Structure formats: structure tokens, C-alpha cells
């Protein structure tokens, strides 16, 4: 297996980057701190221990979003996995979007605070570039074939970086008590009859307004209109026109959900799955796949490079793409499954709910753009769109 050698090297490197100097610092400072505070925390995992299996006291740690997300994943994935494989596993709720700095630092320090983590595409790409993820052989994942092709993120040599776990579609969700009709087109964001009544995600790489504008308006040419700064500027110019309509720029879903429920805003960009949960729980909201297509993105299961349990982690990822697991998660979260339709056992109604017009109709965002030009973009964004 020639492809694993680089992986092995990476692992080895990680485990041996603990020079004595740091050990010394570590022990002396820790001792000092202990003495100073008289408080003992739980000891951190120190890299370099022998590769062994996860145990009850040191289970396989899975980084996931918290709240309902964690509840569902615990019930549909983590606990069944432990039952099935006998490997103790535990989910760790995190604000994953903010956690990349932490992961990077931990990995650089040779530590693995979590072993497996589900990340959005931008974070996955970033992690790949920074060497945060473990690259492993496709042979390690028995069910790989079931996964929709482009949802397996691969490294340069064909080794695996991440495997799609579930997806979400960014749609338009309307409070039907405030607005007569649910919004059905992205163009509505540009419609000045909705002055101050709408909401949108403020992060360019989360709200994808550039992608949306490039796909929605005829003067642009989809992703091709986002290749050069000059072109992007033109699209951004167009995006700036949504500003009068946007009464609320949010960064996290919950920030928009409350105002939407309470009618403080009439409609917003919102994830399909979140909206369906909201509606199910009694909120007066309707979500629509916009005519131009929802913005479809997938969260990938990635393995942290410095993990002590690469084998257990791979087993977990393999388990996460089992069809019954995928079905369950989809049923409970209304997320988009990442394995082929034929593998699943979804009702038509549910399929309709989560896919709408189907994956082919969706806008697949230009994720890499938001990384390659991030500084420029974030500055331009704050100075034009958000001003």
C-alpha cells in the first residue's frame, strides 16, 4: 500500500515532535500551576503514547455541532456505532465553524482534542491546506462506493481527506404571518418592496451571496464570473443592492431564527433542515427551494491527523455512511444524505422535503474562492456590502 506511507510519516512526525524541552516546560509549569491553584484538572492526552484502542476513560471523540444536532447524532450515529463496534465513542459539541484555530494549534502541538470532526467545506479545505487532517487510503473505507462521488474529498495522491456526512441547502424561509406569500426566488432579496424586512448571512463564505448573484442574474455567468477580482467586484456591486432589504445580518442561524419566528423580519436565507425543524416545532414559517436553486453544501467527516486512534476513527467514518444511519439522520434532521438515493430508504415525501428539485438543480458554491481571496474579500465585503 504505497499510498499510506505518506500518512504514516505524517503520523510519526506528529508523534515525535515532542522534544524534551517542551516536556520540561510542560511539567514544571503544570506543577507550578497546580501548586498555585490547588486545582487539578483532568490531564490532557499526551501524544506519544502507544497506539491503542479507545477506552471508556478515553473514548473516540467526535466533534459535532451542539443542541439538537448532537442529540440526533448521538442517537442515530455515535451510540449505535459503539454498540455495533464495541469502540467507546463520545460526541463533543462545538461551535465547529470557530474551532479551526483550536484544531490547528492542537495538531501543531501534536495533540488531538477530538479524533473525528464534521466540518463545512471551507474548513475542510483550509484544514487540508494546513495539514490538519489525516490522509488515508480509500481501501480503509468499505462503503466508499455508496458515497456520491464528489462528496469524497481527496488529496493529491488520491488518498482520502474527508467524506461527506450530511448536507444542507441554503434556502429562503418566510414567516407566513408577516408575508402573504413565501419568497421563491433569490431575486426577492433585491426587491425593494421588502425594505428592511429580510435577513441574510453576513459572512461571504456562509451566505454565498456572490454565488447566488452570479447564478441568479443573467449578466453573470455562474462560477465563471467569480474568477478574477474585477469580475467579483462587479458581482459584489450587485450584491450591495440587497442592503436596503436586509434588516438583519446574521452569523449564526439562531440569530435569525428568533426574529423570523417573531415576525421581526419577514424572510431570510435559512437552511432547509433548520427551517423544517422550526416548522415542525410550530413556527409559522415556510421554506422554499428558490427557483434558481438552493445553495447546497456538505459537511465532511474528517479525521484529525494527530489522533491516537486512526483505525477506530476510520471505522467511525465508515459507519457514518451506512445507509440506515444516513436514513435516520435524514429523517430526524432533514439534512441531505450523502449516499446515493438507491442506497437509502426514504419516503417520497421526505425526499421531496430535503432535496426539493434535486441535487442537480442546486447551486454548488465556489468554496475555494472564499479561502483564496479571503482577506481581500472580507475587507471589500465589510466596506461595500455591509456598510
Amino acid at each position, binding site marked *: 500500500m504505497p499510498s499510506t506511507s505518506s500518512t504514516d510519516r505524517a503520523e510519526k512526525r506528529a508523534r515525535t515532535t515532542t522534544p524534551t524541552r*517542551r*516536556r520540561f*516546560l*510542560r511539567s514544571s*509549569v*503544570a506543577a507550578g*500551576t*497546580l501548586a*498555585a*491553584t490547588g*486545582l*487539578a*484538572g*483532568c*490531564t*490532557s*492526552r*499526551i501524544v506519544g503514547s502507544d497506539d491503542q484502542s479507545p477506552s471508556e476513560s478515553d473514548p473516540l*471523540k467526535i*466533534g459535532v*455541532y*451542539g*443542541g*439538537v*444536532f*448532537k442529540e440526533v447524532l448521538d442517537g442515530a450515529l455515535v451510540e449505535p456505532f459503539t454498540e455495533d463496534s464495541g469502540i467507546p465513542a463520545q460526541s*463533543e*459539541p*462545538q*461551535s465547529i465553524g*470557530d*474551532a479551526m*484555530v*483550536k484544531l490547528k*494549534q*492542537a495538531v*501543531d*502541538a501534536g*495533540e488531538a*482534542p*477530538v479524533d473525528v470532526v464534521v466540518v463545512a467545506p471551507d474548513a475542510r479545505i483550509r484544514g487540508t491546506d494546513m495539514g490538519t487532517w489525516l490522509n488515508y487510503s480509500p481501501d480503509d473505507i468499505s462503503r466508499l462506493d455508496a458515497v456520491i462521488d464528489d462528496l469524497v474529498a481527496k488529496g493529491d495522491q488520491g488518498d482520502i481527506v474527508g467524506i461527506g456526512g450530511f448536507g444542507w441547502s441554503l434556502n429562503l424561509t418566510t414567516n407566513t404571518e408577516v408575508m402573504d406569500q413565501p419568497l421563491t426566488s433569490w431575486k426577492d432579496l433585491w426587491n425593494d418592496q421588502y425594505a428592511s424586512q429580510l435577513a441574510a448571512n453576513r459572512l461571504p463564505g456562509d451566505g454565498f451571496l456572490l454565488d447566488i448573484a452570479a447564478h441568479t442574474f443573467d449578466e453573470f455567468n455562474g462560477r465563471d464570473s467569480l474568477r478574477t477580482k474585477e469580475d467579483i467586484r462587479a458581482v459584489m456591486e450587485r450584491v450591495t443592492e440587497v442592503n436596503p432589504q436586509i434588516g438583519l445580518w446574521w452569523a*449564526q*442561524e*439562531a*440569530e435569525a*431564527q*428568533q426574529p423570523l*419566528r*417573531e415576525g421581526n423580519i419577514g424572510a431570510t436565507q435559512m437552511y432547509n433542515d*433548520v427551517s423544517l*425543524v*422550526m416548522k415542525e*416545532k*410550530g*413556527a409559522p414559517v415556510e421554506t422554499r427551494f428558490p427557483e434558481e436553486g438552493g445553495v447546497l453544501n456538505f459537511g465532511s467527516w474528517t479525521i484529525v491527523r494527530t489522533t491516537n486512534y486512526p483505525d477506530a476513527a476510520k471505522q467511525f467514518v465508515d459507519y457514518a455512511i451506512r445507509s440506515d444511519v444516513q436514513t435516520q439522520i435524514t429523517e430526524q434532521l432533514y439534512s441531505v444524505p450523502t449516499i446515493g438515493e438507491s442506497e437509502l430508504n426514504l419516503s417520497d415525501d421526505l425526499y421531496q422535503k430535503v432535496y426539493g428539485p434535486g441535487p442537480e438543480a442546486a447551486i454548488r458554491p465556489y468554496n475555494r474562492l472564499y479561502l483564496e481571496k479571503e482577506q481581500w474579500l472580507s475587507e471589500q465585503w465589510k466596506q461595500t456590502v455591509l456598510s
Partner: protein
Amino acid sequence: MGDDRLPDGGTVRGSDRERERTRGGLLRALTGGTVDLPGSIARLYLGACLAFIVAPIAIIVAISVTPEQFLTFPPNGFSLRWFDEVLSNADWQLALLNSLVIAAGASVIAASIGLSLAFAIDRYDVRYTSFLRGIGVLPILIPPVIIGVAFMSYFFLIGISGTLLNLVVAHGVFYSPFSLVLISTGLDEMDRSVEEAAMNLGATQWQTLRTVTFPIIRSNVFSGVLFAFILSLNEYIIAFLVSGFTVTTVPIKIFSSLRYSYSPTIAAISVLYIVLTTAVVATVEYYTGGIWN
């Protein structure tokens, strides 16, 4: 009163006040000691201020009993399910416990740093007083986000990461300036001759500190501890960064669940906090005979 009436420079600060006290005492006796302070406008203003303080609490209490799965105001019914959720859910319990332990440890560290530094600055003939004061206040001047990143890098560098201790130390150091400022203020404002009186009566420095100085600046010290405790309890970003992935506090837990809306558990936790505060403050007041008197 001529210059001669000024206290000898050698006497302590506050002696002027003491002198005024006597005069005031006489005046008070003459005037019958009436305090005619808040007039009706003042009272109205005060009422508005208190309403400003209380209104949000009332709203939070109201939404904590919503039977619905979202924060709802006004609530469409009455249910204690969210209290039950907080009190019976092991994750919430752990997060709550972590938060309280971290806050307690951090407030102890913050107070100990603030107290000793305030004393050092105040008491000893230390050169560079303003330098020390500056150093003491500096931690809080760095935005939490970035000090969080710095702490995180540092903890990884020295190899302690992902423990409660990280948070305790990070919060303790970060919030120590509050203790320092408050205790310094207390020391500045107290009549220092009482300490000399104590030493003159045979009390060692330590005894003086324990039996005289500390009781007098107690409300300042306690405010410092309280501030650190509360700020630590509420602090998200530093905690998030230095906690690794394994230590969960209440704010971390709340933030991690933001994808699926604000859960009314937050309101329930808040109400529990209010109850807890009332209990703690009442107990402390009862046993100490009044912190803020």
C-alpha cells in the same frame, strides 16, 4: 480655618474626613439628622433606572416557563420542562458544574493576584508604582478573542491543554485587573491610620491585614471576587479557545447549539442562576453581617 488647621502632612489621608466627621456630627445633631434626598424627580428617575434593570429579568423569567421549544414571549402557556431539562440532563449538569468550578477557581486567582498586587503597590515603598499598576491592569485591555488565542498557543506550547485548569488560570489572570482596581480604590479611600493603630497595638503585618485592613475593604474585595466569578461564568470566547474540545462550559454549550435556535434551556439556566445568586448573596450576607453595608 487657616492653613494651620490643615493636618500635618504626616498624618494619614482621611484625617481631614475624620475631623469633618466630628463637625458633621454636631451639625447633624443640630439639624435633627434628616436626609431629605431624593425629590420627586429624583425618585422618578430612580424608578426608571430600576425598571430598566428589572424589565429584562421579568421577560426572561416569563420565557423560561414557555412550553414551546423556542424562546417565546409572551409564553403561550406554562411549563417547567426546560428546568427539568437543565436539571436532569447530564450534559447540562456537567457544563453547569464546569462553569461554576472554573468561575470559583478563576475568582480566587483573580482576587489573590489583585489583592497582593494592590497591597504591594499601595503599601511598600515600591518604585515603579505606576508601572506595576499598568502591568496589573494590562490583561483586561487585550480583547478576549485575541488573548484567548494567545493563551491557547501558550498552553499548547507548555503542554497543558484541554483541562479545567487552563480555563481557571486564563480567566483568573484575565479578570485579575478588576480585583486590582477595586481593591486599590478601597485602599485609597480607607483611613490608613487604622492599620498603623493595629500595628502599634502589637499586630503583625499579617494580623493587621487579616483583622483590620481586610474587613474594611471587604466589600471591594468581595466585589472583585464577584466580578471575576460572574465574568468567568459568562465568558465564551476565551473559554472556547483554551478549553480544547473536551471541557464544556455553559456559554460554550449555548454557542455550540446555535445552529438549531436558542433553546429555552438558556432562559431556564438564567432563572436558576438568579435563584442561585439570591441564595448565595443572602447566605453570604447572613453569615458576614453584610457585605455591602
